[in-house]
């Protein structure tokens, strides 16, 4: 007995399996398939034959997959999705894995450069390692993308040279007690280097001219989609780094414990070799895995965003309540302000991440709240706001409030105790955050209340993203001389 429904759901699972066809796409294809079956059935074809014919008419599944995958060729992870069944791709993948492993070792070796130059003592020169950590971790990733995307060398080498340039600059700057500017450099360098990685992730950006209009559409690292994918890539790499890092930590402690039992002290060897190679190699491995294990993370990412958005909303609301109860604490307690800043940065990261993950989760709107429309069949915008967007909007609005409190606290401290590197950096960051959060909340309100497309928010957010690395660069390059390298 032919079961049409079960056949259709098997077919649907089959086309979803490879991953390049998302949920929404498969819904659309299913609807097409059913239309096709209906029409054939009306012509008197049996259900079974109609199903087979309709599937055939849709065409070769592998080719459709490839076409869908091509849609997003600018995201490297999806293009990895084309199954490695041909010996040629299998060989390429093996070579790629070898290169990634080699680069991971390179990251570890990079971190040994200070030791070669006579700065081996971790305790004594910990600041030096902190300052350079981002360079050790990110340089191999840039090289990996250079290979992976076969970027044109002529335009990429100058960008790549930013890494040695930054290395020389930050290490030539002296650092005196209490080393505030050096610590600021350590905190801000990852932001700058991450933005450099965007270039290697997205490729160079020639302006493509559209003949008839003369208007340029940005491609490469300038395009909104690339930036969005890069944000997602960064977020997912971060998740991988945390996961593998925790696993590695457990492993290290287990090993050390075992060696201790047999009377050997393994810690010197671990801190000298295993920890740096493991830690700095972790980042390039994570970057590689994000590309390889695409479907795995795609199913985790929206879940994570959904778990943490309401939780952070609660955190912000409790912060606001705490502030309302004891307003003086927030102003006088220095560490409270720092926590405000950390939480705000995480909130912005979370909002960015859930925005970038939103498209993955582009599911069908529930059929329940369809209202009849005079235009004919009841219709609803594909990207109508959902409860989800309301929550994100609430999160951003409360972040604006928290940021205003933090900003007023910093200004108060500035006027009371004068400028220090930390306060100046915090002031700049809070102003940028506030501008960004206000723009985001305006975007969300326009989207929810006026029904403007969600994409407008994405375009706006991706366009203002460069303000952060620019500010970070100012902190790294100008703050130390300005504050006498203290």
């Amino acid at each position: 007995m032919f079961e049409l429904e079960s056949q259709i759901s098997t077919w649907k699972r089959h086309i979803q399996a490879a991953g390049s066809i998302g949920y929404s796409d498969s819904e659309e294809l299913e609807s097409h398939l059913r239309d096709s079956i209906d029409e054939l059935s009306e012509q008197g074809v049996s259900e079974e034959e109609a199903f087979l014919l309709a599937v055939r008419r849709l065409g070769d599944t592998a080719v459709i997959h490839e076409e869908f995958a091509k849609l997003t060729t600018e995201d490297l992870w999806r293009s990895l999705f084309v199954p490695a069944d041909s010996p040629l791709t299998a060989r390429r993948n093996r070579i790629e894995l070898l290169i990634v492993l080699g680069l991971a070792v390179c990251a570890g070796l990079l971190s040994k450069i200070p030791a070669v130059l006579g700065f081996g003592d971790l305790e004594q020169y910990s600041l030096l390692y902190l300052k350079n950590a981002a360079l050790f971790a990110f340089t191999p990733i840039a090289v990996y993308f250079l290979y992976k995307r076969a970027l044109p060398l002529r335009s990429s080498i100058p960008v790549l040279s930013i890494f040695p340039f930054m290395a020389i600059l930050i290490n030539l700057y002296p650092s005196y007690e209490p080393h505030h500017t050096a610590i600021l450099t350590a905190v801000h360098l990852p932001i700058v280097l991450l933005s450099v990685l965007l270039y290697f992730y997205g490729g160079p950006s020639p302006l493509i001219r559209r003949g008839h209009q003369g208007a340029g559409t940005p491609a490469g690292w300038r395009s909104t989609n690339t930036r969005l994918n890069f944000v997602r890539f960064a977020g997912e790499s971060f998740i991988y780094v945390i996961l593998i890092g925790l696993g590695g930590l457990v492993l290290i402690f287990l090993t050390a414990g075992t060696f201790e039992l047999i009377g050997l002290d393994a810690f010197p060897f671990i801190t000298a070799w295993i920890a740096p190679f493991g830690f700095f190699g972790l980042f390039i491995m994570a970057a590689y895995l994000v590309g390889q294990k695409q479907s795995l993370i795609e199913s985790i990412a929206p879940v994570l965003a959904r778990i943490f958005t309401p939780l952070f909303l609660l955190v912000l609301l409790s912060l606001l309540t705490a502030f309302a109860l004891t307003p003086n604490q927030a102003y006088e307690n220095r560490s409270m302000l720092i926590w405000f800043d950390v939480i705000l940065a995480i909130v912005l990261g979370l909002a960015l991440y859930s925005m970038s993950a939103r498209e993955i989760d582009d599911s069908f709107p529930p059929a329940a709240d369809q209202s009849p429309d005079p235009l004919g069949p009841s219709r609803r915008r594909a990207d109508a706001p959902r409860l989800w967007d309301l929550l994100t909007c609430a999160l951003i609005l409360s972040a604006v409030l928290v940021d205003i409190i933090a900003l007023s606290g910093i200004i108060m401290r500035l006027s009371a105790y004068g400028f220090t590197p930390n306060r100046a950096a915090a002031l700049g960051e809070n102003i940028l955050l506030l501008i960004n959060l206000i723009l985001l909340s305006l975007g969300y309100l326009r989207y929810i209340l006026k029904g403007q497309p969600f994409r407008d928010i994405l375009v706006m957010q991706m366009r203002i993203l460069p303000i952060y690395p620019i500010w970070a660069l100012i902190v790294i390059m100008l703050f130390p001389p300005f504050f006498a390298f203290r």
Partner: protein
Amino acid sequence: MTFPKDLVAASATPIILAVLQGRDTYGYAIIRKVQQISDHRIDWKEGMLYPVLHRLEAAGLVESYWVVAENGRRRKYYHITAAGRSEYRALIDQWSVVYRALCSLSEESP
């Protein structure tokens, strides 16, 4: 009639945009319409339409929204944007230049 792949790919965009000029519609209907007006001589692999539509959407030439039909079937409708219309006009200009060139050349040397 089978067309070379490149020609199918190049002509799909103006054809789809032309269908959408009239009114918003969904993938299956676009395919049927194209078959009907071409007497089944343009016969796309149906599954290939959707990647093309999504590409147009990503380029901002069309927009989409879901609709529930009377029979309860959910369909994704496509709507041509202003950018889509001007792209369409530009494409039509290009195609007619090519078409006219071919016509006059074939008249010169029959």
